[in-house]
């Protein structure tokens, strides 16, 4: 839908959820159609710590770092992401008079993902394969469900959980989930809110903020991006390739973060 804006809210990187929610309420009054996708890895890590099950990261032989999501970690992830972040965000929007509707990829098979079949790790100098990992890569988003909720006057609030072909719950990356949702809805704009003013030429020097980036330069930007920003650039690339008109990576710590992004703040990629 040409009028639709998909907004990804970062976890707890200093991003101001209440400012984002208030801004969303205003944009809805102006007739915009919004969909939220949120993260939650920081909340999941904190809950895991509190329950004596700290997050486990695995570095592969060639240097990729993966969060290892075994069954117990998956259940903690579901409690933190579906039960805390999603429910509290939905509550916050409801208290502002916005008819939010929280859901995740399990619900009505909203987001179908391929389960990662193996992780390589190094233990005591040996290369080993770990197979009980519950992470996935989204392959299909059931746009009809979201369109049904939008038509019912709801603002869908989506948690980064998908369902496998076998019906298992999977931890998925929220930036890339937001990109896949934007593509499925044929959204006009994807806004990735984060705790930085946008993409920077020389991170973390904010004076090197990139204001506009043509799609053709994305692969160069991917080389340049640091840490979590890499996933945002990947998400931006997937969204544009899938037909989304523009992607904005913008600051989620400001007064009216969505409106500011739409008015030109952050990095516009198209």
């Amino acid at each position, binding site marked *: 839908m040409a009028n639709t804006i998909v907004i990804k809210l970062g976890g707890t990187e200093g991003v101001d959820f209440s400012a984002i929610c208030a801004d969303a309420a205003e944009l809805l009054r102006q007739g915009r159609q919004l969909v939220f996708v949120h993260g939650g890895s920081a909340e999941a890590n904190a809950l895991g710590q509190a329950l004596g099950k700290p997050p486990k990261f695995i570095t592969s032989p060639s240097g990729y770092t*993966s969060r290892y999501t075994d069954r117990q970690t998956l259940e903690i992830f579901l409690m933190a992401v579906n039960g805390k972040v999603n429910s509290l965000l939905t509550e916050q929007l409801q208290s502002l008079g916005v008819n939010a509707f929280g859901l995740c990829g399990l619900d009505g098979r909203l987001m179908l993902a391929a389960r*990662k079949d193996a992780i390589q790790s190094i233990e005591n100098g*040996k290369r*080993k394969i770990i197979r009980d990992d519950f*992470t996935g890569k989204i392959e299909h988003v059931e746009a009809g469900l979201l369109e049904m909720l939008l038509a019912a006057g709801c603002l869908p609030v989506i948690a980064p959980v998908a369902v496998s072909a076998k019906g298992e719950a999977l931890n998925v*990356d929220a930036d890339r989930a937001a990109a896949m949702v934007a593509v499925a809805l044929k959204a006009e704009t994807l806004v990735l809110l984060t705790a930085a003013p946008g993409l920077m030429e020389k991170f973390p020097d904010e004076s090197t903020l990139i204001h506009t980036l043509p799609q053709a330069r994305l692969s160069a930007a991917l080389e340049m991006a640091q840490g979590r920003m890499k996933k945002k650039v990947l998400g931006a690339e997937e969204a544009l390739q899938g037909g989304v008109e523009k992607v904005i990576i913008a600051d989620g710590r400001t007064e009216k973060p969505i409106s500011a992004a739409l008015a030109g703040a952050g990095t516009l990629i198209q």
Partner: protein
Amino acid sequence: MNTVTCTECEAEITLTDNVEVGEIIVCPECGVDLEVTGLNPAVVQLAPMEQEDWGE
């Protein structure tokens, strides 16, 4: 002593005593990565490729 056959080049490979299920060995003939999926009897299969992180 456990021996297995490489699934790629059919070379006979002798496993070391301390090999574990889930371990990746490299075929000395063709260089492919093989995952040890069983030990009694010893079985190997082509190891899955390394992948970037998928989760949140």
